[in-house]
């Protein structure tokens, strides 16, 4: 299928509209205790996901490489992986649906942000041809998805403790439950982040003969991972939980944003082409 900018942006806007509708249905359903509406909201997000996926595939064919260079394609594919991972995670963890009011808006905001960044067809540097690069990126996107879910639970914890979100009490776990969900998904994020770094090291070794060269993106990624490690360590061995653990996770989340979206903008590195 031959694509065009108009087609890809049109499809993406279509997906945004569907996501917005799904978000409204889920939010209204959750706040007014209408489980059927919530369920329909999640079902409504699936065609959006399919349409969005089709848009990404057309874009992939147009530019000749995966969605990992241009700002638009990075944000759009992050949103797609986030929503897919979220919907898949809700199968074994049905309580996760409560985070839909954070995940769904995040997804459409990411896509819309990408569209506002003016999609550009970027060429691929020769060092970016490796299956390890694809794995490196996929695992980071999965980690990012898990981190957003954990962030949603940390936010819920902080709000519920302050007497907010009473309307969501039916669908949210109790306070200790919210805390544990946050902990678990932070653990998933930490693990997938580590796998992403490992895949990146293998890619670097295959391409340059060196597996680590302390470029700013790598260094910040390592720092973020280490801070996640400290968070998990404090929870596991120093019984950190509840309020202070949630605040620490908020810091971890901010670090994640810096690491994934800000550091590539500051310095030239082997990640120089990414997100510019």
């Amino acid at each position, binding site marked *: 299928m031959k694509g065009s900018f108009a087609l890809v942006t049109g499809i993406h806007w279509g997906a945004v509209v569907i996501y917005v509708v799904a978000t409204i249905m889920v939010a209204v359903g959750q706040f007014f205790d209408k489980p059927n509406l919530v369920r329909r909201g999640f079902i409504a997000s699936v065609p959006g996901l399919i349409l969005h996926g089709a848009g990404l595939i057309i874009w992939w064919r147009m530019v000749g490489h995966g969605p990992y260079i241009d700002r638009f394609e990075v944000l759009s594919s992050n949103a797609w992986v986030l929503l897919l991972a979220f919907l898949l995670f809700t199968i074994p963890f049905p309580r996760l649906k409560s985070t839909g009011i954070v995940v769904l808006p995040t997804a459409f905001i990411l896509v819309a942000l990408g569209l506002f960044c003016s999609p550009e067809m970027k*060429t*691929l*540097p*020769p*060092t*970016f*041809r*490796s299956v390890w690069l694809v794995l490196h990126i996929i695992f980071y996107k999965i980690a990012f998805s898990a981190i957003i879910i954990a962030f949603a639970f940390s936010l819920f914890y902080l709000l519920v403790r302050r007497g907010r979100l009473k309307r969501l009490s039916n669908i949210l776990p109790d306070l*200790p*439950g919210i805390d*544990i*969900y946050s*902990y*678990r998904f932070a*653990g*998933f994020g930490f*693990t997938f982040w*580590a*796998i992403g770094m*490992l895949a990146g*090291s*293998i890619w670097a*070794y*295959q*391409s*340059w*003969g060196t*597996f680590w060269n302390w470029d700013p993106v790598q260094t910040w990624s390592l720092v973020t991972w280490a801070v996640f490690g400290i968070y998990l360590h404090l929870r596991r061995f120093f019984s950190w939980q509840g309020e202070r653990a949630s605040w620490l996770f908020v810091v971890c989340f901010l670090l994640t944003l810096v690491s994934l979206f800000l550091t590539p903008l500051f310095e030239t590195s082997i990640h120089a082409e990414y997100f510019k």
Partner: protein
Amino acid sequence: MKLPKFLTSRSTVITLLLAISVALLFASSVPQRSLGGKTPEWVGTLPESLQGITALLGLDNVVGSGWFAVLVALFWLSLTISTLSQYSATRALLRSLPSRTAPQESIRIDVSPDDFEPLVQAAGFRLAASGNEVRRYVKNRIGYWGNFLLHVGLVTAVFFTLIYVLTQHRVLMRLTGQEISRLSPGNVQEIRGVMSRQGKLPHTVVLKNLEPRFWGNDKLEYLSSELYFTEQPGGEPRRVDVALSDKSQYGPFLVYQANAYGRAFDLEFESARGETGQIRFYLPYPLRRDGAGYGEMVLPGTDFLLKGKFYADRERASMTLNQSPLTLRLFQGKALLGEATLPPNEKTPLGPLSVRLVQSQWWTDILLDGTRGIAGIFTGFALILAGVLSSFCMVPREIVVRESNGSLLVQHVARRFALFYREEFDEIIQKVAKTEDV
């Protein structure tokens, strides 16, 4: 104290970890021998006796020193023994049967063991051990192996790190088109590990052809080199093709195409007094068709600074090399002494000197890596992550069933996140209640 007990004792492990950490901290904060094996400057400033001690202890090459290898080897031994005991412990745990006495948190249900079994099996629990009116069902048994896997990963990663430290051999060489380069420790940048005799260098190498290709937006699309290696004097040359992201094997070495490439200009200088000299001026290839490749160097034996630039295409219309002249500027301090654009093979004045462009050729950097153990290190890390994934994401849960006065006492046990998995147990109990109702 027996050796295995000594090696796995907490104090030994902490001492070894501390020693390795201090060594690595020292190596990352004090300049070490770089690629090329050059001794760092700080060693030269020490009194002679201390220089001897520094060399003996390998303080300028900590990671490549023998004592560091011994520390890593001891740590590996300790981990291996610990891993073996993890294996035995996990096996014993899987087969163990809880005591007959029911803990307080057990729930009493009026259902026969045979009626209860299908309910727990439907929820994914499998019988792990039974006897003495106690049954133990486990879900996600693999989770119990997580710690063992993590240990195996650590053992693998540390073992191959040791191999890496021992066999480290990396050679960076700059090749210039069509020239036969003799590979000897003097004219390549080389770094070697403890086993310094390992990995004999090829005799010569020639860069027969360098091919950069560009996208329409001037970005580099592809960079490849056609190399010819000879193993020994008079030997048959063997062709090796490499490209960015496409390495090749030559003997014990992996051959990598580095990012750096450009044009090497051979220049002949003549001073006003008739003294002549030749230099090779390496300039990086331009990044854009309307941008130049810039470089500078101090002219050997003078205080003149030579700055040069060239474009890919004379007309600046393409990234393909096309008769682009070299422009030179000569400085003394900040004073510009002269500027010239050089036609090939013509003597041209440049400040107090005259200069002739003898020839220009492609140059590129090539890396030979004969180090062993990288794949093993990566495998070790993958095993560590598999261990973390199986113990963190596949948390093993148990349902212990004890027969008591015609009914059952059931207990739910989760190694981690007990609260998180409480619902699955509650669902089973609810199903029991429904069965009772029927």
